């Protein structure tokens, strides 16, 4: 990295705040493997809907499960789906978008019309179809969300890459004898990276929401595996007895999404050398 990158990162307030939230999310997922206050799936019906106490810091849910433990274990699923769906979708989508921008013509048309086709298909329908074929579960949810991400990344990549291809320094690189692949990797990709990073953090946040939504609909994580989406789902039935049950998973999702967005914005600023005060 560039000299002073860490120092600049530490001075970037919203990046630091976002990084703290994301670290919290990662930490929660990691911690859940090692330790939870209670076994996350232990049912204790007599103590259901307990208010926060020394034993259960955030209380218990409708089946007497410890909410802190559920949140910690649920972070795993959210992270896993987010990483798999955005990672896979971005990889495929960015590759297709770069290809479309570099080759233009027939290849471009083919890629972009396929993306249109994919968009025309409701994402939820895709998820239901996949569930019908593969059975519900975390992997199916990740696959469905990932598939939806491919055209999203293909489009934004292609549009931004086209912009870079028309810039003078790409013409200059071509005048140096650089081929399409080298230009794509050396000039196009670094210049659109900020856009893609921001998009990836947004999509990551959306993937967490989508996983919650799919789990809420019963298409994602299956009982007894805890997930934030399922916690919301179950809280809904107790909306009038214990409205606070929905707060915790809702807050967890909101903070994760906020953290990822702040990190994305911060990275966009930090990766721009024009905003750095480098050696002169």
């Amino acid at each position, binding site marked *: 990295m560039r000299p002073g990158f860490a120092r600049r990162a530490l001075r970037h307030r919203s990046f630091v705040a976002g990084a703290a939230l994301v670290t919290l999310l990662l930490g929660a997922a990691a911690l859940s493997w090692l330790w939870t206050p209670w076994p996350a799936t232990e049912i204790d019906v007599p103590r259901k809907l307990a208010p926060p106490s020394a034993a259960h810091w955030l209380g218990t849910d409708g089946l007497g499960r410890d909410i802190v433990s559920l949140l910690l274990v649920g972070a795993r699923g959210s992270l896993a789906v987010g990483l798999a769906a955005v990672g896979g979708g971005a990889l495929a989508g960015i590759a297709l978008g770069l290809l479309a921008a570099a080759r*233009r*013509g027939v290849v471009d048309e083919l890629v972009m019309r396929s993306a249109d086709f994919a968009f025309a298909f409701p994402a939820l329908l895709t998820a239901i179809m996949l569930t019908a074929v593969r059975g519900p579960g975390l992997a199916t949810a990740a696959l469905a969300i990932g598939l939806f991400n491919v055209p999203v990344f293909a489009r934004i990549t292609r549009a931004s890459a086209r912009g870079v291809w028309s*810039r*003078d*320094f790409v*013409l*200059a*690189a*071509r*005048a*140096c*004898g*650089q*081929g*399409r692949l*080298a230009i794509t990797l*050396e*000039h196009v990709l*670094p*210049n659109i990276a900020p856009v893609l990073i921001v998009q990836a953090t947004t999509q990551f946040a959306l993937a967490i929401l989508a996983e919650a939504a799919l789990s809420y609909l019963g298409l994602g994580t299956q009982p007894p595996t805890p997930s934030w989406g399922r916690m919301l789902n179950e809280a809904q039935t107790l909306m009038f007895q214990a409205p606070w049950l929905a707060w915790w998973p809702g807050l967890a999702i909101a903070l994760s999404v906020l953290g990822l967005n702040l990190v994305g914005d911060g990275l966009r600023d930090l990766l721009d*050398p*024009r905003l750095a005060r*480098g*050696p*002169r």
Partner: protein
Amino acid sequence: MNAPLLDLRDLRVTLPGARGEVALLRGVSFTLHAGETVGLIGESGCGKSLTALALMGLLPPGARADGSLRFEGRERLGQDEAAWCALRGDRVAMVFQEPMTALNPLHPIGRQVAEPLRIHRGLSGVAARSEALRLLDRVQLPNAAQRLDAYPHQLSGGQRQRVGIAMALACGPDLLIADEPTTALDVSTQREILELIDGLVRDSGMALLLISHDLGLMARHVGRVMVMYGGRLVESGPTAAVFERLAHPYTRALAGARPRLGATRGTRLATIPGRVPDAAELGPGCPFAGRCPRAGDDCLPAMPPAVEPGPGHAVHCLRPHPPTG
């Protein structure tokens, strides 16, 4: 004379337009020998830059090129992209008009200067870095050693243009194309950059094709000029002969439209009457006929053949201006 470095015969370039194909280069022929310095002059939109791009094989998508473009004895029109890539940056290199945008803002300049060497010579790491330093020293970039890791935004326009020139020189090309290399720079920097290019051309023996609309600059920096109008060369010849005689009415009009230092206050800037014709409207005849004070009906059916008022001097005009004085 031995075989020319560059030999263009009747080069035509058409681009798809809103109303069918538009011919932007309408039969350009010239030769350029090793070590020769030639200027290509004309108004905006006359085809200067397109000629340069055609020489680099960098025509915009959809463009069609006909005729013949021989470089180092081989026909280059229609050769595949790999063959062009091997040529570009190695045997032919280009300096661009806008130094502010011709460098990638995300890479240090040392790395960008060494790019052609990495592509064509397989240099990497320390070797590429030391070559980059040598090149930046050669273009007289101040404090080159400290600037290898600087980013383009940390340099001034003139310094960036030096970097652009260093990049073009990297592989020691046989032909350097400079497309309005100083238009975006202030006057004193213009002078420095052109003197730099002059010196480099002299030292390395490469040929120079300098593209500009500035006659004064041409007079000082190239041995031969070609005047382009409406996608055709209307006049070409030794710089001194062309500017002394101003035989073609367009060349003369261009010279007359030059702002002059020390002109009497209130003098209006002379202009060429009419406007630059739309390439789609041009007929088969002389493209300048519509604005030319000496034109007649005989100018319209076909491009006038060349008359030669002196050795190596060709004027495509039926009624060229006679020698003055």
